[in-house]
């Protein structure tokens, strides 16, 4: 199975419809925010003027995209979402962010490598452990020794 089997194909009607609806939602949200800022006049524009115009344009284009989808016959093609890598990488990065300033870069890097490895196709514990150790060493040499960045190394 190749990853980009449809890299050159035109987007499906489903992709157009969902994309259009999300675009409308984004534009609507931005517009509601923009309207809460002073509008000013065309000559002395307020902070709300430009974002309001942008949001309206986005909504219009979103509607166009959604209509484009409805115009076409709905070919049933599911949008395949792979949740596992999203969740694993999210947890790994969040753990890194929370540990970096509190515990230092060494434990944070180990956590990031070990947790994110869980998204791999096959789990190989030893390889992940070795990778974590090697990466921690590399990070230490590059960022602390060579670049001398002001990072906490380890703080238990």
């Amino acid at each position, binding site marked *: 199975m190749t990853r980009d089997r449809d890299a050159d194909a035109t987007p499906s009607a489903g992709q157009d419809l969902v994309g259009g609806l999300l675009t409308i939602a984004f534009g609507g949200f931005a517009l509601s925010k923009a309207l809460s800022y002073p509008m000013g006049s065309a000559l002395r524009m307020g902070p709300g003027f430009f974002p309001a115009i942008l949001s309206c344009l986005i909504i219009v284009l979103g509607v166009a995209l959604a209509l484009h989808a409805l115009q076409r016959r709905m070919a049933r093609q599911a949008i395949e979402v792979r949740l596992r890598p999203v969740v694993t990488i999210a947890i790994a990065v969040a753990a890194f962010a*929370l540990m970096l300033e509190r515990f230092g870069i060494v434990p944070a890097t180990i956590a990031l490598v070990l947790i994110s490895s869980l998204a791999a196709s096959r789990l190989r514990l030893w390889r992940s452990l070795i990778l974590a150790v090697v990466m921690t060493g590399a*990070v230490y040499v590059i960022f602390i020794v060579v670049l001398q960045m002001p990072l906490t190394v380890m703080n238990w």
Partner: protein
Amino acid sequence: MKFLQHLALGIDVAFTAQNLLYCFLGVTLGNLMGVIPGVGAVAAVSILLPVTYYIPPSAGLIMLAGLYYGAIYGAVTGAILLNIPHTVSAVECLDGYPMARQGRAGVALFMTTIASLCGSVVGIIIIAIFAPPVAAVALTFESPDYFALVILGMTGAVALARGSPLRSFIMILVGMLIGLVGMDVTSAQPRFTFGVTQFMDGISIGVIAMGLFGVAELIANAGWVRTSQVRASDITWRSLLPTRSDIRAAWPAIARGTFIGALFGVLPGAGAVLASIMGYTVEKQLAADPSRFGKGAIEGVVAPEAAANAACQTSFVPTLTLGIPTDPITAVMLGALMIKGISPGPEFIGAHPDIFWGLLVSFVIGNVLLVIWHIPFIRLWVKLLTVPFDVLYPVVLVFICIGVYTIHSSVLDIFLVLLFGCVGYGMRLLRFEPAPLLIGLVLGPLLEAYLRRSMIVSHGDPLVFFERPISGSILVVSAIVLAWTFRKSFKRERAALEAQSSGAQ
């Protein structure tokens, strides 16, 4: 004759052991910073800044400059190999990464190295000849002129689009809106900040770029049963070298990119990003078959790279002759000069020929060093692609996370890169392109600021954009480019329709 004397003086200065050493140090460290995803050159500059207090001004300047262009040289590596751009190299992702996926990463890296060298050296020659007069013209640019330039950049962004123009237009607008996050410069009103102080200055482009391209790429690919893209036995020296047809396609693109970059570099504040966008746009417009772009067209990689490097070199013109820094790094360089009691300005070249010409010659040395330093590494970088993705993605993730953090020492930025990674994955699923979003992000706030400021300084006269010769002529050029783009795409669409209807019958 005088030029030769200056050149001799420059060679004298640049070839001292001390200056060679600092040049080497600067470009090497800069290149390293550039290759590591996310780590900006600003971080490196702030580390090396104290060193400049203790060495002569020419050596300090040579080192800081080396750091600056070394980083731009290195930045393209991540873009081509892993689809992880720095802000300057986002455009190179468009065709560089597809080339790598086709097993042509070596060719892409080799040709961008040549493009960088060419862009830089020609950029240097342009500095040497035209610096002072060109810089003086650049200073007459006012807000309406910059507004027109941004419009020109936007017409370029429309041309950048691969796939549906409707979708790329949406992405440009979304990018512009995200670019408005933060305190409004004109009214001090915080916009879209959700009460978070850190959002006052907006979201850093580096964070968004690494999220939408880098992290999204990792999420999309992690966990597929897939061995490496390239087999180690396939990497021969020959496979790294461009073919004759590559070279034939690339050299005019390099020449055009260099010219465009040199032009944009001189404008204070326009910079390398705009130059690389325009470099790409021109190539796509001139191409006989624009549909090759976005799928690994060599012109689409080398032209923006040559443009970015040429712009980087020529940006020293406003810095040195006008005392106007074009970004934080040139600002630091100016600071280093002023501490030594040397003030940049039109008289700078006359008053300190040793520093100016020494710096120029060191640019040449530095660029040659970079090529020597880069070419043997190409094989190593390409080998990187033979590493199984399961091993590669945690490594890349580590560098992205640390890199993002070092931009502003901000933990929030790490969460943001994650957020934009997830958004980028969603965009992929729905077939939205991240590149136009990034361009909207750069251009949106500029467009708004120049528009509003133009209206204030013209006391509310909208005709100001057409009355000024500079802005007027740039706007006319933009209109022509836009008309050209639409005419082309209209023709294409009609041809496609005809093909479809004839196929149906």
